[in-house]
């Protein structure tokens, strides 16, 4: 099936009429005019099944999504610029907050040498990495913690009516202005850490990306509970708070009993603890494994969202908005 032909045909087709050829099995269009007779319901259904199988293996589709995401990002960036002043104030607040905790750690480690196996530069690295990962997640997928609110307000429909995956479309349609500051801040701290060279910066980026995916996936999954529970805001906020809090303190202090938690429901282990170990040892070999974990979290989040979407489409919710 040649996707490209059908796309071009669809676009150059007569206004208001899908071309007969374009309506062939490969196309994404609805049945054409006179060719309708030749298209059986079975044929359309079969095409529907193949087209609906979200396969990113077809180059046309991948390119289309890349263009879409780039356009969404451009719109987001432009939108964010509207809030320049606000952004600066928030950036300042964040720097202040991090400075306060840096002072705390400096004093404490000054007294004790290390805490839970972390030295001062370890703590600073964690702050930098978590800040940038969290920031990147909210820069690119700004709606990650608004899914619940959007669903409750009826704002999901707009995305359902567009021919792009609703999950991706929804997430990419907003950027959180303060997150740009978080993202930048991590790099600033990284620059100030001793021993930072180009290789380490590269490693930092390679660790930040899966971290961002895991953050986004975890929050999106919690927000998707809205489809099932009505208002999952409390769960989502609590989860975000827990995850951030645990990520910023040494793994060693939490003891063996909680270990499983940090590698499952509250994946601080994957966004902070493991990356620290990788960074200390400059061990690139483990990086693909981290990427694999990130992909797994993303897949789980999407599955949960899709399940929720099916429920949404059935229309049966607590306090349904008809």
């Amino acid at each position, binding site marked *: 099936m040649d996707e490209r032909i059908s796309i071009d045909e669809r676009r150059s087709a007569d206004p208001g009429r899908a071309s007969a050829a374009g309506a062939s099995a490969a196309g994404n269009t609805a049945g054409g005019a006179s060719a309708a007779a030749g298209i059986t319901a079975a044929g359309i259904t079969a095409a529907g099944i193949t087209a609906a199988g979200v396969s990113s293996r077809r180059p046309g589709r991948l390119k289309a999504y890349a263009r879409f995401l780039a356009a969404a990002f451009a719109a987001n960036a432009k939108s964010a610029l509207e809030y320049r*002043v606000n952004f600066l*104030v928030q950036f*300042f*607040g964040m720097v*202040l*907050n991090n*400075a*306060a*905790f840096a*002072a*705390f750690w400096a*004093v*404490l480690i*000054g*007294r*004790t040498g290390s*805490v*839970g196996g972390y030295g001062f530069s370890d703590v600073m690295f964690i702050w930098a990495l978590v800040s940038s990962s969290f920031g990147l997640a909210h820069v690119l997928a700004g709606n990650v913690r608004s899914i619940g609110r959007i669903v409750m307000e009826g704002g999901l429909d707009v995305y359902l009516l567009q021919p792009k995956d609703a999950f991706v479309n929804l997430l990419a349609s907003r950027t959180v202005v303060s997150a740009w500051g978080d993202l930048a801040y991590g790099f600033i701290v990284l620059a100030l850490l001793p021993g930072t060279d180009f290789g380490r910066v590269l490693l930092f980026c390679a660790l930040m990306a899966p971290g961002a995916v895991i953050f986004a996936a975890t929050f999106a999954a919690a927000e998707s509970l809205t489809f099932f529970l009505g208002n999952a805001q*409390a769960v989502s*906020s*609590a989860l975000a*708070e*827990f995850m951030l*809090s*645990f990520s910023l*303190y*040494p793994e*060693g*202090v*939490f*003891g063996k009993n909680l270990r499983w938690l940090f590698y499952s429901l509250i994946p601080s282990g994957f966004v902070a603890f493991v990356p620290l170990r990788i960074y200390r040892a400059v061990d690139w070999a483990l990086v693909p494994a981290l990427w694999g974990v990130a992909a797994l979290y993303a897949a789980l989040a999407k599955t949960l969202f899709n399940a929720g979407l099916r429920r949404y489409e059935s229309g049966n919710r607590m306090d349904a908005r008809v």
Partner: protein
Amino acid sequence: MRSLSSRLRCSYLAALTALRERAAYAGNFGASMLTYGLFVFIFSRVWAGAYAGDALIAGYSLDMAVWYFIVAEISAFGFGRFFWGLSRDVKSGQVAYLLARPYDFVGYHYAERLGGSLAEVGFIALEGLVAGLILVGPLPAALVGGGAAAGIGRAAVVVFSLFLAGTLQFYLQFALALSAFWLEENDALYWIYQKFALVVGTLIPIEFLPEAAARLSLWTPFPYLSYAPARLFVAFSWDEAARLIGGQLAWIAVGMALARGTFALGSRRVALNGG
């Protein structure tokens, strides 16, 4: 000025109303109780990791450090966010509107906000107590030793110190909120205040700070926000109680002057510029 008794009665009613309103939404406390609990848990582990075998750091044992954090955070959590409500009132013009009312503006708000916060503080304090008993064990010896009467007496002093801490928090944040009359984006001022309050006495006891910083901090109001009640809780001594409570009262006087001063200046500005 109106009689003291009528002013007191007004304050009492304001506090009671605010308290009832807050208590009615008990569900609201859930979020802050969760956050408080989370922090207490995490920091108890962090301190355990920091001590790792050492008996004392800066004169504090591990148990003392954890209890310290529990009590310090009660003040920080319970009394630390007056600013937002006050700021909203000032920015929305509500203040200008209320200026015409024939009562002591500052005093009324003090009663309302501090009174209203007591329910939440109560819940958090209870949660802290339970958490401490579970995570640490027995209450600090300096507090409870020597018989029930003495213990209750000391506990009362600690509670009084907490109350003074809340009072000081209110007046300082009130002055900060009123800066909105002159400064549009005054949130940053509050954040600076809050971070200093966090580092100087909430996250770490004063004794942990490097000597110069510790001595300097005693000239600021920050130790009297969280450090005072927390210190008295874990290492009570009548000498220190006198000193710390004296310091709190002194700073409250400063705070009240600041609050009333900014209020007077601010309301004059409103009268001139029309809100």
